[in-house]
């Protein structure tokens, strides 16, 4: 079941961004959708985990 508007996902997919950026945007959109409507969403931990993971992955990819 796709929950993020497919137009958004398609735009990200057909862009020239790096795979890590695409993956982060998709992951963050899912987090936002999950917290949509929450008054005080606790998003920081989820954001940080994804950013750090993918930044590290990107860095190691560039080194390779």
């Amino acid at each position: 079941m796709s929950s993020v508007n497919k137009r958004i996902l398609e735009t990200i997919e057909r862009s020239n961004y790096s795979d890590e950026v695409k993956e982060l945007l998709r992951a963050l959109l899912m987090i936002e959708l999950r917290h949509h409507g929450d008054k005080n969403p606790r998003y920081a931990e989820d954001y940080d985990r994804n950013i750090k993971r993918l930044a590290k992955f990107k860095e190691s990819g560039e080194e390779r």
Partner: protein
Amino acid sequence: MELDYIHMKNFRQYRDVRIDFSRSSPDNFTVIQGPNGAGKTNILNAITWCLFGDEYHVDSKYVGLPIVSAMALEESKNGIVETSVEIQFVEDDGKKILISRSLSHRESAGKLIEVPGPHAPPCIMLQAERDWSGPYFGSEAQYRINSLIPPEVEEYFFFDGERMDDYFKKNTGKDIKDAVFEISQLGLFETLTERLIHRKNDFVKQTRGLSSEVEGIREDLEIQARSLEVDKEQIEELKKKKNEAELLERDFSQKLHDSSLEHIKGLEEQRTLIEEDIERTQDEIVEHEAERLEILHRSMPIIFAYGPLIKTKALIEVKREAGLIPPMYKTIFIKNLLKKGRCICDSDISQKDEYSSARRKKVEAFLQENELSELSSELIESNVRIQEMIESIATFPDEILTVEKKLNFLQQSKNEKNEKLNAISQEIKQSNVENIRNWEEQKQKYSDEKDGLKVKIGLKENQRERRENIIRALNIKMKQELKKEAKHSSLLGLLAFCDECIKCAQEAKETIMREIKEQVEKKASEQFLALIWKKDTYKGVLIDDDYNISVPHVTGREALGSLSAGERQVCALAFMAALNSVSGFKVPLIIDTPLARISSTPRKNIAENLPNYLRGTQVTLLVTEEEYTREVKEALAKKVGKTYGINFQEKGEGKMAEVELIHG
């Protein structure tokens, strides 16, 4: 995704009613027919209540009344009555989604008390490969339902014909932009970008062992970021106030427009036309101001450098007249001659005798002279360029004067039109009808308020832009400082990644926004022209950069304000259907009283065209007998798979409605 059935129990006038919807294309239209007040809109409400826990289309006569059937309560004699709505959808692959919501009530001492059920509503079950998954209850179920149909965009799938007429009267460009934002979920992108910026700032904040220089920049960044937040909030607040003022101004203008006094009505119509004219003049002024700026940008550097240019040109001329430029021979030619021991006249100068030595010295002197004038080719080119520059500004006075004249003329014309507006306003204010005087004063008050707020928004936006530039510069400075220390290399990597993602998110948002706007404009225009009965009257539907909708008349005059109620409804129908079709969500459409405000002949045209632009979409029409005329029935005959009739009856205090299958 298509609607399979809805089952309502004790929901307002529906005691126990199940409606099966027609699903198989090409006849995937379902018509539910009933008189006004029979409960058509409550079917729409039953759907939104089941999905989102609220009735979004509730009629004023039902506001505050409990959803539980009054008749069922009376019959239960203080027992518990359960209200429930169950909806089944079928996905494209044939898998079913069952959503239900129930709420129990009982009456105690004349008061209605809610009785909690064993599970928090709503409930959703999803058909999987072999079995069903779920049931899921409460917030988890709601999350899954919102993923299928976001509540913010439900009005673009469940249309209310009566409200559609007011859509453009009550909504400003900003509201429409918000609708595009909602329907395309771009709000998620905006929040995501803001949060990425917060996280980026927090990464720096959390880092220990920063140098005092970095610490200072970080503090500055924090102050600027906080101020930027305040700026943004203030801009939003000002925009909200401006929209409110704009709507109120429009309301009072409409009141004057609808006045029973022909004279006032005429003046208001005249004013609307002049205001539109002023808007066009203003657009022309902006266009010519841009042209003036372009001429100035092109010519001013030459004008400022005119003196030095003329002097340079004169110096080059002197050299040229003295025969120093251009040189008669290329330096390389003379060098080659000397190398070969030949004179320009080809005599031998390689010998050591007096004659050869004397000639050789002459050629060497000539070379030296020539080397000095080696710059001459550049000077010649410069001379040509200077000449061109001087000539290019020869037309400057004429060009700038023409634009200035045009601008003066437009400005004067705008002033004259403004004076006419003032005169109309004064005339209306002198009316001997108190209401008219009050409406005019109110209109003027909100118009002034709107103009003042526009200026404030402009100033605040400038301030925000300046602050964003400061933040950008501070970020660069911070990165430069961090680069100096190897221990911060991973932090630098994180910040760079965040920056890249922020930039990409912003770019993607802009792309989607632009594409959606273009598609909505194109589709709304096509659909409006297909549905409207005055085929040669309007050019189509336009959406400007601020999302203001306009319907240009073939003469070029803006016509949205003067559309009839039926035409406005068609415009809104076309616009909403366009939004729906580009939304990215495949959800069935339910349209309540789509043809109520449209007279008989155009109805047929709409009924004939409706299936074409909603091709492939499952549609349910909630109609009155007056709307569902013989012509409409004939036009829709091939598309309608099922037709229901609502039988409504009042029994004592309670009301009851039954739905009967007429055809299908």
